[in-house]
């Protein structure tokens, strides 16, 4: 910076001197086309030493800017770009992984849902089958109990009828025997014996 200040100061100092010497130089060099061009530049205030100094000054400034400002800035920008690209790539990969994970989770969820539905359906079918089996078993048992009860009732009825019939028969026979025993006299019995003998002879 001190160098630049010094260069500016020297340029400022040299400018009036150059302006004072310019007509003389122009007069001295105003011969031929080159002299014309120089005089033309001179008429615009451009002189060689001054331009050279400015070029050097600009080159130094450009070098300094490139070395200490532009290059680090470009490096930082490249680094930042690289980081941004890396972040973007990571984000994309993360998004892809997230999508894959989401897809896998959805697939697992669907599979689990299907499995759950299948288990539920199986359980329902098993429960239904068990209920049907129990119902059929209960019906069969009920039918068997009813049949046994009917058979027992019928057997009791038949037995009772047989007992009643036997009892009635016994009473009838006993009564008939008593009647015969009381009412038959010897004469009647003798006649019956004769009839039996005749029956035996036949």
């Amino acid at each position, binding site marked *: 910076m001190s160098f630049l200040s010094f260069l500016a100061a020297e340029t400022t100092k040299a400018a009036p001197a150059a302006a004072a010497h310019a007509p003389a130089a122009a007069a001295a060099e105003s011969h031929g086309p080159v002299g014309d061009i120089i005089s033309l530049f001179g008429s615009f205030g451009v002189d060689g030493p001054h331009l050279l100094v400015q070029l050097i000054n600009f080159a130094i400034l450009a070098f300094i800017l490139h070395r200490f400002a532009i290059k680090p800035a470009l490096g930082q920008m490249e680094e930042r770009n690289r980081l941004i690209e890396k972040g973007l790539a990571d984000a994309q990969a993360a998004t892809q992984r997230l999508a894959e994970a989401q897809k896998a989770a959805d697939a697992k969820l669907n599979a689990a849902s299907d499995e759950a539905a299948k288990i539920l359906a199986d359980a329902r079918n098993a429960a239904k089958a068990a209920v049907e089996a129990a119902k059929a078993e209960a019906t069969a048992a009920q039918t068997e109990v009813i049949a046994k009860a009917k058979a027992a009732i019928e057997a009791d009825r038949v037995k009772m009828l*047989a007992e009643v*019939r*036997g009892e*009635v*028969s*016994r009473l*009838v*026979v006993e009564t*008939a*025997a008593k009647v*015969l*025993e009381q009412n*038959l006299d*010897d004469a*009647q*019995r*003798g006649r*019956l*014996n*004769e009839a*039996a*003998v005749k*029956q*035996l*002879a036949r």
Partner: protein
Amino acid sequence: MSAASVRAEAKRLLALSLEGGAVSSERVGAVLAALAKSRSAHQLRPLLRAYLTHIRRELARGEARIEHAGPLAAADADAIAAHFTKALGRPVRPVARRNDALLAGFRVRVGDDVTDLSASLRLANLAKSLS
């Protein structure tokens, strides 16, 4: 002697005791006398027991045991015996006994055969058919 040989011997003695198809008391006496002479006491006891059983059975086969309710004429008893004599082909004599439990009619037993023409049997059959 075994039981089988005793039965066979008793049967042979029974055949010797028959005269005209009926048991003869004379022949039975002769058989017993011969047995007493020929057999020892311990051989004689089972043989005599079997012989007695055969004699009783044979006598029963020759008797018509008539159980009757009320009076039974002798002619009717003889008619019954004649019927069985003819049917069985051997002489059968009547042995009558009154049994009013028969109510009416009679029951005849000849050996193991029973012929029942009593009112009590008919009532029993009636009761059986009703029950």
